[in-house]
């Protein structure tokens, strides 16, 4: 269910109506949000909801065990029952076979129950693990507090990283190992290769739950004892599949106290976020995708001839820069707007990233929830910048490499991460960050332009599906003669869809506000609204594209 679909509109209207209806009952509101979040996710593939449940149950129990060292019987029963019911609902029942017909709802009960094959194994093993965990619980209680805290932190991290590792990286590492064995030893090992489907949003919710357990371990946050509240925090539908990766200390408390549904200015601000997000996604990103795909897709399918016109490649990369920005930040804006309507505050994930004047500034503005996650849970624990220059450079590079790998299981993402690590190190080595503070307006503009070019170089690595495409495209940019007629033709298409976004961002930058329309006269504000809405209605791409970050 995409945010920019009629399905989501209907879904949200119903959820919001019920949410408003139960405005005086927090527990029912939370339960409603949990059910609707599972429904929202289940529209992609209900089977993978079980992974969310596994992550939820593990971190709920780990959090409490780390914090208090004691799970009450009621809490254990709730968590265990939830897991068992989920096994039935998401593994045993095959929702794909539920053929919903507009005219007649016909359900063949035998057909929708899957019991042969992997489903049976999953159910049996899950129940065995559950029984063992419950059986061992009295022993866990007896372990000394400091060890118990560590054990449950490790359990949480292992479970989450295992889910992520298996579903996201298994094929990547197996394929890479096969290729390596083949190229070095001439061997073709017959390995256990699986066709694993990547569950939508797995990188987001596993990172979110891990941050929760680590924060509880660090005593920055008390463990959640209300299972529904915690499960809703993990699966909260506005940010479940593509972030922002919300920290427990920021989002969890919002499930504990009554929320005020957006009214007046807040209501209009929420709507603005939703419409501005839709504009970025449907007008900018989806139209840019048409340009980008035309240029990149032949190479995604294995073409190895160098492109004849480097100028077209440059415009293609520029288009991708706006596609990925429009796509991802558009999603976040819609998520923030939807959550804001229901009285939630979700963190800002993008703050004019293309106005960054250095790599570190870029990461303070781009995918802020991931970069702060990497900073707090990886870079600083590695030592950060405390153990000398060399260690700082090593930590920066390692963090960016892992950040790259987080985006996807492919060498191109590793190269992209390495590239960002490299430019971070160079800027730090030359102390450019410190010098920028004293730069004049013109020099600063130059630094912004330079950083934008570097970012685009990174995007070329990010978008390419293989290393040979990266090399071919760079060669084409550097060595081919530019056909300006073809280049300008494609540039015209590009600028037609992005000019308003650029103009608005310049306005945002100079007014130092993400909602600068509130600084102008209401008639002008009305026209900004009108332009955005009309653009969504009339200029949206006919070809709907999935959100890019769903794949991460």
């Amino acid at each position: 269910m995409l945010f920019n679909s009629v399905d989501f509109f209907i879904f949200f209207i119903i959820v919001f109506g019920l949410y408003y209806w139960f405005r005086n009952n927090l527990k029912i509101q939370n339960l409603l949000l949990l059910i609707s979040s599972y429904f929202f996710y289940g529209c992609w593939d209900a089977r993978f909801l079980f992974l969310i449940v596994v992550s939820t149950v593990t971190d709920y129990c780990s959090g409490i065990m780390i914090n208090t060292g004691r799970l009450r019987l009621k809490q254990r029963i709730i968590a265990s029952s939830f897991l068992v019911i989920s096994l039935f609902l998401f593994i045993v029942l095959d929702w794909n076979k539920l053929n919903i017909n507009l005219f007649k709802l016909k359900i063949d009960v035998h057909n929708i129950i899957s019991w042969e094959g992997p489903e049976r194994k999953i159910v049996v093993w899950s129940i065995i693990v559950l029984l063992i965990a419950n059986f061992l619980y009295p022993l866990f209680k007896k372990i000394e507090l400091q060890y118990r805290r560590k054990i449950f932190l490790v359990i949480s991290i292992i479970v989450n990283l295992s889910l992520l590792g298996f579903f996201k990286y298994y094929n990547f590492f197996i394929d890479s190992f096969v290729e390596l064995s083949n190229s070095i030893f001439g061997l073709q090992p017959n390995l256990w290769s699986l066709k694993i489907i990547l569950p939508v949003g797995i990188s987001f919710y596993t990172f979110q739950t891990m941050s929760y357990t680590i924060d509880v371990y660090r005593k920055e946050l008390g463990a959640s004892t209300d299972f529904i509240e915690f499960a809703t925090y993990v699966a909260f539908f506005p940010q479940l599949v593509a972030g922002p990766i919300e920290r427990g200390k920021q989002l969890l408390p919002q499930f504990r106290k009554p929320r005020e549904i957006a009214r007046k200015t807040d209501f209009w601000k929420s709507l603005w976020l939703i419409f501005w997000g839709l504009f970025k996604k449907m007008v900018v990103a989806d139209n840019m995708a048409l340009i980008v795909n035309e240029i990149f897709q032949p190479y995604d399918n294995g073409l190895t001839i160098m492109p004849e016109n480097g100028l077209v490649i440059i415009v293609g990369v520029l288009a991708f820069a706006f596609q990925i920005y429009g796509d991802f930040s558009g999603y976040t804006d819609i998520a923030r707007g939807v959550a804001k309507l229901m009285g939630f505050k979700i963190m800002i994930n993008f703050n004019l990233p293309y106005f960054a004047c250095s790599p570190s500034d870029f990461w303070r503005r781009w995918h802020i929830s991931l970069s702060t996650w990497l900073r707090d849970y990886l870079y600083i624990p590695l030592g950060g910048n405390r153990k000398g220059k060399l260690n700082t450079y090593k930590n920066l590079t390692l963090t960016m490499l892992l950040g790259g790998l987080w985006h996807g299981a492919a060498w191109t993402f590793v190269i992209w991460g390495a590239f960002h690590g490299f430019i971070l190190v160079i800027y730090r080595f030359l102390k450019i960050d410190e010098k920028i503070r004293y730069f004049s307006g013109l020099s600063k503009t130059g630094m912004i332009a330079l950083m934008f070019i570097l970012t685009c170089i990174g995007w070329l690595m990010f978008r390419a599906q293989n290393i040979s495409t990266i090399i071919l495209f760079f060669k084409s940019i550097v060595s081919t003669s530019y056909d300006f007629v073809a280049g300008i033709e494609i540039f015209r298409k590009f600028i037609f869809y992005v000019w308003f976004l650029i103009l608005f961002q310049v306005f945002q930058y100079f007014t130092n506000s993400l909602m600068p329309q509130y600084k102008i006269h209401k008639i002008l504000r009305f026209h900004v609204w009108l332009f955005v809405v009309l653009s969504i209605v009339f200029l949206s791409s006919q070809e709907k594209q999935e959100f890019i970050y769903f794949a991460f």
Partner: protein
Amino acid sequence: MKLFIKSALIVVYIFIAAEFFLRFFSPVPMLPRYIAETGYGIRGNQPSTQYFHKTPDYKVHFKINSKGVRADREIPYKKSEGTKRIIVLGDSFGMGYGVDLNNTFTETASRLINKKGIKNEIVNLSVSGHGNAEELVALTLEGLKYDPDLVLLQFHQTDFVDNVRSKLYKIENDSLVRDAKTYLPAVRIREKLFSYPIYRWLAGNCHLYNWIRDKAGGKTKKILATIRGIKNAKIKSTENDSLKPDDFNEKESEKDLSYKYTLTIAILEEMKFVCESANAGFIILEIPRRVKRDEFFNPIRANVREQLNEFYVLSPLTDFQAYKGQLLYWENSHGHFTPLGCEIVGNLLANFIIENNLLSTKL
């Protein structure tokens, strides 16, 4: 009351803004269809009208004569001495949407044939939206009055579906029989609407109106297709996967699919028989379906074509492929032929008629 007036003014302002937005950023093709009821139960072009088709790609003038034929003159039923007549049956492609009259593929072919010394004229009975069933009615009840030497049937992919939908003919005991007396979808409403000058102005000039009409039409078709599809959802389609035309119903039953083809072949055979009885030649011209600028396919599939061995079937597909990359179909204006597309088809048609001596059957 004040609030009501204020709200109404805002709504009006938004509509005006939307119109200007479309004009400036995303002009909408305006292709009004002046359709009227003919005297023989099917749709025809509204006689004695003139109008424009305006799109971001072109502006084309349409002149319809008193008999509902796109022509810049009146054409009497009786042909002049020594002139061969080619009757054209088709839909918007045959009618020449997207190009001026002189650039239509039929007029181009006619000129080329004239240059070869065969004096001829075109009587274009094409009407936007027609399928073969309506074309057969038009041929028998109107076309034959022109005493044709050759009948050119322009075949479009939508004909298969239209033939069934119109219910003008059916297959009974393995024979084609006339079924419904009339097929006039939304004609009366259209006639009524076009009788108002304000509606004519909207249809021919208002981008917002045309945008809404296109969207509403598209959505309605989609909903109807879904409803039809769901009815037969359990039966697997036998459609070839390499063909992915947008107006074939993927969930169509094998029986329905087979009936669609059988009916179409029977209509074509009847047309051929009518032409032969009138001592006129008969050609089928396929309009290739465009997938991309350099990718096309023929609408008549191999299994249907096998049954048309006795027919002259002509397709510009190979010629189109040779022009790959060039603009043969308008891409922002409902996908009809460009002047280049028409020129290629016109050349092909003229050569085919001359090579096969198709205008010498009757003197």
